[in-house]
């Protein structure tokens, strides 16, 4: 098998929910992507402006904590970095589905499991987080 001659694509996952962000980022890493996690649009902008980070795709929640929401972030990216693909999502099911699509499109590995499993996993973890 030929060794891949290109760097893995980099996905910036932007989500204010630590559990969703963590699970989605792990899922995408298992697919072979390099993943950067950002909590809000301000962190996302730092990643996008950082030399060497070379973000190819942004997977962002619409509702982000802070002054800028996902739509505003997408607008900023389209104006300033038109080559970067932006995927916006407003629900965990959509986020997981988009991650599943990225894994199928990705040049590296097959998706590790079905996006529905990702959603179940996130919901279970959130359920666990409600106990105190």
């Amino acid at each position, binding site marked *: 098998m030929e060794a891949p001659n290109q760097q893995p694509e980099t996905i910036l996952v932007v989500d204010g929910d*630590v559990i969703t*962000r*963590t699970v989605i980022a792990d899922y995408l890493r298992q697919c072979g992507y390099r993943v950067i996690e950002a909590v809000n649009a301000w962190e996302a902008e730092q*990643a996008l402006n950082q030399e060497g980070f070379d973000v190819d795709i942004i997977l962002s929640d619409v509702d982000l904590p802070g002054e800028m929401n996902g739509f505003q972030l997408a607008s900023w990216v389209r104006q300033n970095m038109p080559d970067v693909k932006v995927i916006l999502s407003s629900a965990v099911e959509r986020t997981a589905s988009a991650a599943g699509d990225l894994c199928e499109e990705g040049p590296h590995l097959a998706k590790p499991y079905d996006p529905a499993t990702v959603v179940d996993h996130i919901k279970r973890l959130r359920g*666990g987080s409600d*106990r105190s």
Partner: protein
Amino acid sequence: MPKISAAGSPAADRLAPSVLLVEDEFLIRLDLADAFRRAGWTVYEAASGEEAIHFLRSTIVVGLVLTDVRMPGAVDGTTLAGWVRRERPAVRVAVMSGHYEPSVEELSLWDAFFTKPAAPELLVKQLDELVDGTGQDAQRSPNDGGTQPAA
């Protein structure tokens, strides 16, 4: 091969050590996370004390919490470290700060304290040695500790 979750798994089956990295400064968090991942750790990232507690209340198992002290929000690093000690006693706690002078009592409660800035690779190496000291890190089930009273 069946997964063995209890302590005492054969060394050959030892899982990667895991860390919850709690740091509000994005680029520092990224640098540290990269260093841990390059060293084979499973890394989870939180940007505040509140996020960290939310994460630790989930069923995700983590062996070590490495936290900055000064962070925005109601839960700073020392508060978080205290919470982990009380609520998740099986999880190791390491604290890092560029300005904070920990008390003797705090130092006795924490597993490690680092002065920032610290070279990420060096910090990871020291924490590698900390978790390798017993080889038990990956087998711990810290969330089990949630129902136990703090010692």
